[in-house]
């Protein structure tokens, strides 16, 4: 296992400790619940926003806690939804008078934990609303009763409700904004390699030297189909078509375009991919108002990327452009 790790069981807590040590003025770390939260939360005039999800998707979600983004994140172990108890305890800790918004990527495990956590918090009199994110077009709604997965598109939901919550919007308003973003966001991903959870010690799946996996999730789950590696532009073509034709996004639409790295793909390659995605978008008549190239929601050290389109309206564009501060930063 080619990883920086001490005891694999300490992988997540040691990472969380690092985040807290690097941001002593703004963040609080509560080891019992894998919890990273803003120090200045709860606030009287602001809904608190939290997300759980498994670990292994960093920077999502523990590293995007901060002003204008998440107020707290309580991830489970690597690729495992948080225990229901984490969700409950975190909800209690962040709850202010305006209530708590739960964001969750649509997976059975996360849904179960957040359902149980929410029930317990509501029993304590805390008002909770939930936005379920399911932007992955690789998994079709009709085919599986659990519905589409939530993947890198969750960034846009977080950014929009995060900005709106700083403006003092109510829980209902935030829920509506979150759902509106989900409706206009679509993603598809692919991988050149598998990835190795520290607790497992070996790759979840392996691909031959000339193979890639299309329609991958963010937990190392195999995807839609395994095919021979193609030139970068061909791969972008395929993902772009699957994503753009799903909503669909049509000529004249104003959009945000994201190329999200899966953890092991260098940023040089992500910009190469962006170049072609940008050109396809323009050829289709889409107007790129905002673009995102980098790592937003990863699968440990997996080599691969996902492509996300968001259809913008003036309010959403304003929320995406609003300033925000998060744990990870360049300067």
């Amino acid at each position, binding site marked *: 296992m080619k990883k920086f790790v001490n005891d694999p069981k300490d992988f997540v807590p040691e990472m969380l400790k690092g985040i807290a040590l690097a941001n002593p003025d703004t963040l609080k770390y509560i080891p019992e619940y894998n919890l990273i939260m803003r120090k200045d939360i709860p606030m009287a005039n602001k809904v608190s926003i939290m997300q759980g999800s*498994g670990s292994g998707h960093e920077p999502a979600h523990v590293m995007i806690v901060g002003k204008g983004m998440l107020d707290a994140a309580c991830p489970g172990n*690597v690729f495992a939804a948080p*225990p*229901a108890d984490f969700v409950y305890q975190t909800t209690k800790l962040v709850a202010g008078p305006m209530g708590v918004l739960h964001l969750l990527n649509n997976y059975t495990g996360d849904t*179960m934990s957040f359902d149980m956590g929410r029930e317990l918090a509501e029993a304590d009199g805390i008002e909770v609303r939930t936005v379920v994110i399911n932007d992955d077009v690789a998994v079709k709604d009709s085919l*599986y009763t659990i519905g589409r997965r939530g993947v890198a598109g969750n960034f846009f939901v977080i950014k929009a409700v995060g900005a709106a919550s700083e403006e003092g919007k109510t829980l209902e308003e935030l829920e509506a904004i979150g759902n509106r973003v989900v409706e206009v966001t679509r993603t598809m991903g692919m991988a050149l390699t598998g990835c190795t*959870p520290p607790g*497992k010690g070996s790759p979840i799946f392996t691909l031959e030297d000339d193979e890639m996996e299309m329609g991958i999730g963010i*937990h190392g789950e195999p995807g839609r189909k395994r095919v021979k590696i193609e030139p970068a532009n061909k791969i972008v073509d395929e993902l772009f078509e699957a994503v753009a034709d799903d909503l669909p996004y049509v000529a004249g639409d104003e959009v945000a375009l994201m190329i999200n790295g899966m953890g092991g793909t260098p940023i040089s390659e992500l910009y190469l991919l962006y170049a072609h995605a940008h050109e396809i978008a323009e050829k289709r008549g889409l107007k790129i108002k905002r673009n995102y190239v980098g790592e937003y929601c990863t699968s440990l050290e997996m080599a691969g990327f996902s492509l996300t389109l968001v259809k913008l309206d003036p309010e959403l564009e304003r929320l995406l452009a609003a300033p925000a501060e998060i744990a990870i930063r360049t300067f």
Partner: protein
Amino acid sequence: MSKNVEFVVKSIADTALKNEQYFSDLDAVCGDGDFGYSIARGFEKVLTEWDNIDRTNPGTFLKEVAKIIMSAVGGVSGSIWGTTFLRAGMTLGAKEEVSKEDIVPMLRAVIEGIKKRGNCDLGDKTYLDTLVPTTDVIETALAEGKDALEILDLATQVSADAAEATRPLIAKKGRAAYTGERSIGTLDAGSVALATMIKALNEAWRA
């Protein structure tokens, strides 16, 4: 408090720890490879806190085990295995001892709890597909007046067959579901885990 309940829980916990890698590997074929790790962490915490678990009565003991699992394990496994022990404990209520007659009602309560929490049913390729036929055979055997060892043998056999019979199914729940038809031909990790636990319990009982 009933030593048998403790024995069963201890045996299940030991089996989960011993098979961590094996169970994760099973989940990796079509799922995300965390199943063995997840339940091992849960049962590990159960064993760590073993001596301090409230033993007022078997029902309380089982409910405390459930809470430990639910605070240590996330998502499907935490919820499903937590629900398992929670429902079993709730069925017993404040009874001082567990009798033969309690077994089937406990298992039926577990099945209902899992169906509700997991929003799943028979044939979805989950651990229900092994739990239900195993419960059925235990019910029949108890009615026929078979003894504990005979029943354990039957349960071992039926659960092994049931786990093997998940192969042709399409996974409809959990992360394995995302692979769709590619899950055909693979074993359901949760089912194999259950069969493995029953087999180990059978062996431990005789040892």
